[in-house]
C-alpha cells in the first residue's frame, strides 16, 4: 500500500464576520478535522452546501491558512507543514497541488483567450523553454482533454465556449504543471447532467495516467460513489467529518445517522422500490446555522437516535468495522 501524500492533523478554520450591528461573530467552518489522502488515491468529500467542504479543500491547497492544526505534505522523504516550508520546498508543493474549481465560466478570465491563460504556467516552471514550445504543449494538453483540433480553441474567449469545454480547459490548466494532488471542488455540479459522466471519466482517465491523488468535493452522493467507487468517501456535517470509509461499504451499510439520511435522500428511479424504502427518520429538516452550531454532537437536533449525551459531548471518530465514525450511539 502506498504512503499518504497529504495529511490533515486537527485542522480547524474559524472565520470572523461582521454582523449588521457591528458585532464580530465567529464561524467555525472546519472543526478539528484529521484525514489523509494516499498517493494515487481518491477521497470523495461529501456534504451539504455550507458544511465547510470547500474551505477544507482550500486549506489542503494552501490557499487558506487554518486557524489551528497542521497540513502535512510529503516532500523529499519527510512530512512537512506546508506553512513552514522553505522557499524551494514551497515551490515544489505549489507545483504539486492544483485546483479544478466549480464554475466553468470563471475558471479562465473572461477577458483573456484560452491560449494566453494556458501558456504562463509552462513558462513559469520552465517546462517550456519559449513561447513556441509552450504553444505546442498547450496544444498537446488540449488534445489530451479532448478538445480537437486544439488550434481552434487557442484564440477563443470563455464567452464563446460551452461549460463542458471550459471544464476540460480547467482540467488541462491544472495538469499542465504535472501535479501530484488535485482538489476538484464540485467540478461537475454546474454542468448538464448529460455531460457529467463524460467529464468524470476524463478526470478518472487523467488521474490514472498522471497517478494523481484527488480530493473530490461534491454534495452529490451518487457522483461521489461513481467517482470514488474503488476508493474512499468522507462525509462532512457542519465542519466535522462524521464518517470515513471505503465507498462501497459506506453506501451499502452506512453507520452514522447522517450518512444514512444522505443515502436515503438519493432519489430512486423505480417508484415501486422508492415507495417501499424506509424513509429517513429525521427529527428536523432544518440545517442549523454555522454561526450558532448546536452543542455536543452537531447532528443531535436532527438525529432520531439522539439522547442526553449527544447534546452534551461531541463524539470523536472511532474505528468501527474498519471505518471511522463519529457517533455515540453506534457500535456500543
Amino acid at each position, binding site marked *: 500500500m502506498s504512503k499518504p501524500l497529504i495529511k490533515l492533523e486537527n485542522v480547524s478554520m474559524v472565520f470572523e464576520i461582521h454582523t449588521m450591528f457591528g458585532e464580530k461573530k465567529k464561524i467555525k467552518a472546519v472543526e478539528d478535522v484529521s484525514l489523509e489522502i494516499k498517493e494515487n488515491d481518491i477521497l470523495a468529500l461529501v456534504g451539504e452546501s455550507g458544511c465547510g467542504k470547500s474551505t477544507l479543500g482550500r486549506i489542503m491547497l494552501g490557499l487558506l491558512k487554518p486557524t489551528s492544526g497542521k497540513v502535512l505534505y510529503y516532500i523529499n522523504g519527510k512530512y512537512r507543514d506546508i506553512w513552514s516550508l522553505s522557499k524551494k520546498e514551497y515551490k515544489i508543493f505549489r507545483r504539486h497541488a*492544483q*485546483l479544478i474549481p466549480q464554475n466553468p465560466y470563471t475558471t479562465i478570465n*473572461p477577458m483573456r483567450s484560452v491560449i494566453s491563460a494556458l501558456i504562463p504556467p509552462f513558462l513559469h516552471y520552465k517546462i517550456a523553454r519559449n513561447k513556441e514550445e509552450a504553444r505546442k504543449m498547450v496544444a498537446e494538453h488540449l488534445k489530451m482533454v479532448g478538445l480537437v483540433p486544439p488550434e481552434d480553441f487557442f484564440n477563443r474567449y470563455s464567452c464563446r465556449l460551452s461549460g463542458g469545454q471550459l471544464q476540460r480547459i480547467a482540467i488541462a490548466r491544472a495538469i499542465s*504543471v504535472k501535479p501530484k494532488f488535485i482538489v476538484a471542488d464540485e467540478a461537475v455540479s454546474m454542468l448538464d447532467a448529460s455531460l457529467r459522466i463524460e467529464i468524470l471519466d476524463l478526470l478518472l482517465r487523467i488521474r490514472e495516467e498522471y497517478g494523481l491523488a484527488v480530493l473530490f468535493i461534491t454534495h452529490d452522493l451518487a457522483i461521489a460513489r461513481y467517482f470514488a467507487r474503488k476508493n474512499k468517501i468522507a462525509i462532512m456535517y457542519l465542519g466535522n467529518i462524521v464518517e470515513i470509509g471505503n465507498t462501497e461499504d459506506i453506501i451499502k451499510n452506512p453507520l452514522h445517522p447522517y450518512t444514512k439520511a444522505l443515502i436515503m435522500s438519493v432519489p430512486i428511479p423505480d417508484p415501486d422500490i422508492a415507495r417501499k424504502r424506509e424513509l429517513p427518520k429525521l427529527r428536523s429538516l432544518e440545517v442549523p446555522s454555522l454561526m450558532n452550531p448546536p452543542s455536543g454532537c452537531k447532528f443531535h437536533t436532527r438525529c432520531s437516535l439522539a439522547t442526553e449525551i449527544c447534546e452534551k459531548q461531541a463524539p470523536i471518530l472511532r474505528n468501527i468495522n474498519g471505518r471511522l465514525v463519529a457517533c455515540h450511539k453506534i457500535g456500543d
Partner: protein
Amino acid sequence: MVDRLRTLEKILSEHIYIPLKILAKDKRALFGLFMLIAYILISLIGPMIIPLDLTPNLEEKYLPPSWKHPLGTDFAGRDILAQLVHGGRDVLTAAFAAGIVTVGIGTVVGIIAGYMGGKIDTIITAVIDIFLTIPGFPLLIVIAAWLLQSGIPITILTIAFVLSITSWAGLARAVRAQTLSIKNEEFIEVDKCLGLSKLYIIFYEILPNLMPYIAMNFMLSSVSAIYSYTGLMALGLIPLTPGNWGAMINMAQAYVGTITGAGATYILAPSFAIILLQISLVFLANGIDKIFNPRLREW
C-alpha cells in the same frame, strides 16, 4: 522572419483591426474617433499652414466670415480661425496629460486598495470618499489662486497635475470595486495554485478586466480636464495664452455686451471647438467600453 511577420499580423489584427471593426459598427464612436484624429492633426499641422498674427487692426473688427477670414475677426480685427487652430495644441496637451496622470493615480491606488484589503483598504477608501465629495472645480480655483500667488510657473504640466488631484478618486473607486470582485474569482485561485506571482495576477488577470474602465476614464478625465482648463482660463485664473480657446472665451465674455450680429462667430467659434471636442471624447468613451468588453461584442 515569416514567423515574425505572422506575429506582427496577429498583433495588428488583435489590437488594431478587431477594435476598429467593433468601432465601425458604432457610428457615434467612429465619429468620435475621426473627430479626435482631426483635432490632433489640425493642432499639429494647422499652425504651420495658418500663421497667427495678433497685431490689432481696429478697422477690421467683428468682420463677418469671408474668404480672407473664414470665421470672421475678433474685437481687435484679428483672424478667428488662426487663433482657433493655434489654441488646440495647449488644450489637447493639457487634456491628455491630465488624463494620463489621473488614470495612473486612480489605477494604482484602486488596485492597491482592492488587492491588499485590510487596513490599507479602509484608509484608502476613506480618502477616496473624501476626494469624491470635495467639489473639484472650486478646489481647483483655490489651488490655482495659490499657484498664481506662489510664483510656481504655471505650465501645462502643472495644470495637468493639479487637474488630476481633483479627478483620480472616481476611477480609483471603480478600479477598487472591480479588483475586489475579480480577486476572489476562481481563476485567481487557480493562478495561485499554479504558483503564478502577485505581479502576474495584477498585470495579466486584473488589469485586462480594468481596461474598459481605464480607457473610458482616460477619455472622461480628458473631458473634465478640458472643462477645467478652458474654464480656468475663461475666468482669467491662469495666464491667458494667445489663441487658447479658454482665452478666447474670456475675451468674448468681456466683450459680450458689445458684440453685434456679425461678430457672433467670436463667441461661437471657441465654444463649438470645445463642445465638439468634448462630444467626440464622450462618444469615444462609450464606444471603448465595447472594444474591451468581449461580452458586449456581437459575433
